[in-house]
């Protein structure tokens, strides 16, 4: 119970900071502006065309949430060191592992807040366009996005302890946005390379987070064709996210634990 | 030669609308060549704001501040000034020598000047031989010493020091006092704020007191000596601020 409370207090402070610093609002505002631009396109006066809106909105929400998560996550731990706010915190009877976990949950909470704001716009937008919300697929998509944010947060924490905040930011954004591309290039290169190269590609595929696995937007978009994912697949994806988030998070904790303050 | 420091009717506010707060109101004073003036006041009285306005870091709502006749904000006025900020961190990725080279070159020193001056100022502040050390390894007190060194590097005619003895150990404070005495004797003009009133008492020939953004008292050397015979500057300051009687 006490630990739970400590977790909550730390997580809440992260969320408070995120919300008070207004960055999230700007991200949301920019996103909404772009979605607004998308809906302002007149489609020859035809009604019932929802895929354009769906795709634009889902793509923007995914991108902006990821941006918010990376921006928030990479600065959490380094800033505590830089501004020396970590001393009064760790002067309490608080294990360092709990501290990292609380920070991670806080970032996740802020990202969820962000995503919820987007959904507040997306869902009425779909109603307005009289499109099918495809709520089962959409629900699965949102769930996978949350898993992805967890993965991104733990990865960003690890990066921020290995590198300076700006380097971690650069790397985090690069890994996230180029993840799909890296995967596709690896698929092609695998055909071309020799045994050593193949081993390298195989290792990289399993070491790097595969963010492409958490983007169901393609199926949400064409929901009239695709059925929701089966439970075993959802379970496997959940397992993947848990294991990899756990590994990165544990790595971050291991570095943080041994770090002289 | 123009007057080192002139402050006339200085008023500075922070914030906007209903949250607007007057930090300094109609403050006027001057500091003449060769004077050593202490600037004292309680926390939040407006000392740092006045000094920042003097340096051109913030802009007055009303009034004017001048350094050697040039309005604050004009780089020319800062040509002969050495300044120590209230709280400053110095680039952690630099070495002490590199930092002083940076500040020295900006003040117009040549390479030859720098080669000559850097060991001297480091020695003066008690950091002799630490030229090659990275600043991230420096303690708070050492950073403060380095701050004094950067203020002195270009042999300025006027020194403006904000909370000069903050973070120094007793030995450091003693050394600092000796250094300031020496500079004063050499004819430098010194204007500094401090909470160490004994320091102010022993160094200054004039003390300016500020309370809630307004100048509340100016103590000349004669008065200071008179005060010194009866009571300490500290008790005088407390009675002035609390009672408002001394004016």
């Amino acid at each position, binding site marked *: 119970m006490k630990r739970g409370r400590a977790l909550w207090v730390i997580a809440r402070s992260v969320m408070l900071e995120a919300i008070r610093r207004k960055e999230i609002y700007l991200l949301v505002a920019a996103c909404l502006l772009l979605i607004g631009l998308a809906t302002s396109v007149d489609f020859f006066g035809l009604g019932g065309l929802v895929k354009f809106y769906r795709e634009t909105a889902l793509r923007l929400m995914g991108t902006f949430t990821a941006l918010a998560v990376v921006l928030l996550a990479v600065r959490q731990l380094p800033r505590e060191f830089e501004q020396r706010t970590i001393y009064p915190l760790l002067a309490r009877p608080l294990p360092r592992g709990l501290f990292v976990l609380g920070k991670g949950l806080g970032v996740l909470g802020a990202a969820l807040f962000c995503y919820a704001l987007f959904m507040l716009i997306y869902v009425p937008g779909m109603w307005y366009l009289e499109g099918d919300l495809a709520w089962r697929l959409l629900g699965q998509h949102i769930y996978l996005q949350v898993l992805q944010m967890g993965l991104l947060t733990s990865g960003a924490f690890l990066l921020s302890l290995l590198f300076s905040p*700006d*380097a971690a930011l650069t790397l985090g954004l690069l890994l996230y946005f180029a993840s799909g591309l890296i995967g596709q290039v690896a698929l092609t290169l695998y055909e071309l390379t020799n045994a050593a190269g193949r081993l390298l590609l195989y290792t990289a595929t399993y070491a790097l987070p595969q963010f492409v696995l958490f983007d169901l937007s393609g199926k949400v978009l064409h929901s009239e064709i695709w059925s929701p994912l089966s439970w075993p697949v959802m379970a496997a994806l959940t397992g993947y996210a848990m294991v990899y988030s756990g590994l990165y998070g544990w790595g971050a904790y291991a570095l943080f634990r041994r770090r002289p303050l | 030669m123009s007057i080192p420091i002139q402050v006339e009717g200085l008023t500075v506010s922070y914030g906007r609308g209903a949250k607007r707060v007057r930090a300094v109101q109609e403050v006027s004073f001057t500091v003449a060549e060769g004077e050593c003036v202490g600037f004292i006041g309680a926390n939040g009285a407006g000392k740092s704001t006045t000094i920042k306005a003097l340096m051109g870091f913030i802009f007055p709502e009303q009034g004017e501040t001048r350094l050697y006749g040039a309005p604050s904000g004009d780089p020319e006025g800062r040509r002969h000034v050495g300044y120590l900020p209230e709280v400053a961190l110095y680039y952690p990725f630099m070495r002490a020598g590199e930092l002083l080279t940076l500040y020295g070159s900006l003040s117009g020193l040549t390479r030859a000047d720098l080669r000559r001056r850097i060991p001297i100022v480091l020695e003066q502040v008690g950091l002799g031989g630490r030229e090659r050390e990275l600043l991230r390894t420096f303690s708070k007190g050492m950073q403060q010493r380095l701050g004094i060194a950067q203020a002195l590097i270009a042999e300025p005619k006027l020194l403006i020091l904000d909370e000069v003895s903050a973070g120094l150990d007793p030995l450091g404070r003693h050394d600092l006092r000796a250094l300031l005495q020496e500079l004063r004797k050499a004819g430098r003009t010194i204007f500094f704020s401090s909470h160490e009133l004994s320091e102010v008492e022993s160094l200054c020939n004039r003390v300016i007191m500020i309370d809630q953004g307004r100048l509340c008292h100016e103590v000349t050397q004669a008065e200071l000596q008179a005060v010194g015979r009866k009571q300490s500057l500290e008790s005088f300051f407390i009675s002035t601020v609390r009672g408002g009687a001394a004016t």
Partner: protein
Amino acid sequence: MRRGMGPIIRATLLEAVRRREMGVVLILMGAMLALLLAARVVGLERPAAGTLLLNLGLTLTVMAAHLVTLLVAARQLPQEMEQRTLYPLLARPIARHVMVGAKWAAAAVVGTGFFYLFVLPVWWLVPRLECYDSRTLVQLLVLQPPALMLTAAIAILTSVYLPRALAVTVALLVVFGTDYIVRWATRWPVLVWIPNPMRLNLVLRYTDGIGPLSSVEFAALATWTLLWTAALLGQAMLRFERRPL
């Protein structure tokens, strides 16, 4: 160069080299070079594959150079203010706009150095199996420094108005997103007043085997970039001069 710029540029360069982020990007770019080397050793059979690798390598180099420039530039002033290292600097007889100019120049120098460090190895490593116009390559190489100057100006401008993380986000959106946004300008003409450093990216033009820009086009593009840079940097200087610290 204005007096006072040199030492500030030097200090910024020192920081860029000594802090670890440059190391990371260098490692990443090194990994990419290794990949290209592998492709060269294995041997590419289809000319189109060579072209795409060349396109990818050059594009990533250009983007990484802009990213580095942007991050270095957007960090400078907010960090100096946060850490209060700005006070001892501005206590010297240098004007504030010189300080902004120096920070801008330093970021552009870092980005340009980075760009040239990688663009030539990339170009050399990828087997070039199709016909490319080397005059276009020269133009590509010449136009990148102004493009990076523009990116630095965008980042500096956002950083004098916004807190650091926000400045980085907005600058990222402008630098990498404008290319997409301005293409809507036929519908919303006001969008042409968003700067677009990626317009000077001639990588695709080069890998498509298209000839160089005419001298008029080239000069127009260069002038356009300088104008943008001047406008943004000038605005940043004006703002910083008026900003209470």
